[in-house]
């Protein structure tokens, strides 16, 4: 046992070819921190609106008309507040998926307003499915049901929130489609999720 430890010690402290293993380990650690940080910074950048807007210019313009851009409280939602899960692993998963977008962008699937309009329903439906499946997680990151003050909400909101939402039959996106964007042709789509 002692001999084994000694052997390890010699390997770690003794001069290797050029650097001690200890130095290499430390160096590796430092580089790791730098790369990890750099990776995360890159990840952070891909969460900025500048990044999203570089391909989705039209949607940024649309967002400016909505309550999630300006409101009395001055709290803003940016693209990634609604479109990228906050949980880190989910984020990676989403990023892997998003690489497909880069491919789609290269092939120009939504490169003109006309192409985008034609494809918009398909894209919107993907988002609705995602939000339906995660019980509107992104909305709930900001709007928490438990802290909604029904006495402060409008009557229409209370009627719906205290029944279908409270009972768990419906989730935010069932009723609040088109909250941040213009909607595509909705004929045949169940708008309020109440049908």
């Amino acid at each position, binding site marked *: 046992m002692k001999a084994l430890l000694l052997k390890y010690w010699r390997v770690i402290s003794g001069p290797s070819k050029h650097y001690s293993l200890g130095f290499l380990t430390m160096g590796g650690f430092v580089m790791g921190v730098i790369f990890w940080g750099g990776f995360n910074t890159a990840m952070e950048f891909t969460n900025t609106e500048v990044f999203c807007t570089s391909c989705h210019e039209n949607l940024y313009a649309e967002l400016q008309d909505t*309550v999630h851009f300006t409101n009395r409280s001055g709290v803003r939602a940016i693209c990634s507040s609604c479109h990228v899960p906050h949980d880190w692993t989910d984020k990676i998963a989403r990023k892997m998926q998003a690489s497909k977008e880069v491919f789609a962008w290269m092939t120009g699937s939504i490169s003109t307003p006309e192409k985008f309009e034609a494809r918009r329903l398909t894209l919107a439906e993907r988002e609705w499915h995602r939000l339906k499946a995660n019980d509107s997680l992104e909305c709930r990151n900001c709007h928490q049901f438990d802290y909604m003050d029904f006495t402060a909400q*409008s009557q*229409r909101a209370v009627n*719906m929130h205290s029944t279908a939402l409270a009972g768990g039959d419906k989730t935010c996106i069932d009723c609040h489609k*088109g909250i941040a964007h*213009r909607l595509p042709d909705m004929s045949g789509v169940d*708008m309020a999720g109440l*049908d």
Partner: protein
Amino acid sequence: MNAFKTLALVAAAAFAGATAIASDNFATLRDGAIAQEKDAPRFAKVENNDIKRKRAYPMQPPTIPHKIDGYQVDLNVNRCMACHSRRVTEATQAPMVSVTHYMDRDGNFLADVSPRRYFCQQCHVTQTDARPVLANEFVDIDELLQGR
């Protein structure tokens, strides 16, 4: 030189005109001299209490008792119908659009809202808490009939 003179004349005339109008006491809604920029009135708040207002006459399109900010009504989608269409009124308890909305101009009933009734805000409007600038002299038909 000549051009300069003309310019000066025009400017003088314009100035004289402006002061003449300003000193006149027009009875206008504007309530202030014309050359003066008035403070803009406060923005009125849209009523959002869901309480139906009375109708001034039987055929009057009812007013909207709630906010409609950001509601999309265009070729793609009609947000109003997300709550007011026949199929969802049980769930929303919103009033169904009246049967006249399903009629074409020949009086035939269609399965869905008639194109001529599609754009809700042509007839229905929200109400605000703005105070009217002028008194409203509208007389209700019942009062007219009673000869008041």
